């Protein structure tokens, strides 16, 4: 092996990684669930806004609600993508054949909730995220057996 070490001095080593990031192994659907519930609350606030009687303070709250809906829909998507690409493994497809479709539709709903003020879409997002949380719990329980 000393020969290889000598060669390393002539041809510098390249670093390779076993992961794309730090594999903390901490996964939880709760942040996505909270984000989806926040989206529902913000849609409620935005829809309750009365443009005719609004004060400057009300308008400020309205803008903040829009921004918060946008931010939490984005966060929800980010959290879902972490679960989809890092936590769930190919073998989970046996347990959940619809896994990819469920995540894909949930991610689409995140985008839809950013673009629109639609209570139906917000509730569908929460339902989809809760469904994923259920799959996560089952997958985790199966992994601990």
């Amino acid at each position: 092996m000393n020969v290889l070490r000598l060669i390393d001095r002539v041809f510098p080593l390249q670093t390779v990684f076993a992961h794309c990031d730090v594999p903390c192994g901490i996964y939880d659907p709760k942040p996505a669930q909270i984000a989806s519930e926040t989206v529902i609350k913000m849609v409620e606030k935005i829809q309750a806004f009365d443009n005719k009687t609004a004060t400057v303070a009300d308008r400020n709250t309205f803008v903040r609600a829009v921004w918060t809906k946008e931010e939490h829909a984005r966060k929800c998507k980010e959290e879902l993508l972490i679960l989809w690409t890092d936590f769930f493994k190919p073998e989970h497809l046996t347990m959940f054949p619809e896994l990819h479709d469920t995540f894909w539709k949930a991610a689409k709903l995140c985008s839809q909730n950013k673009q629109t003020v639609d209570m139906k879409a917000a509730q569908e997002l929460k339902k989809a995220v809760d469904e994923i949380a259920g799959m996560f719990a089952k997958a985790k329980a199966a992994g601990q057996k």
Partner: protein
Amino acid sequence: MLPSFYEGDCVLTFNWVKPKVGDVVVFKSKNILKIKRIYKILGTRIMVRGDNRKSSSQERPITPKNLVGKVIVKY
């Protein structure tokens, strides 16, 4: 890749052998080099995963074009 490879291990790769299931390979992924083990080969799609299954990140199938080489020695 624990327990097969630890941080700081050095490996030598060769690229003139055809990869097969069970081989540890170095490949390019999004402009960085990664090391993982082949668990399935479907035509030109090479499926890889880490040995430390609990912490290993999921990897998309790689193609022979992205393969740098097979690990033949650890030192």
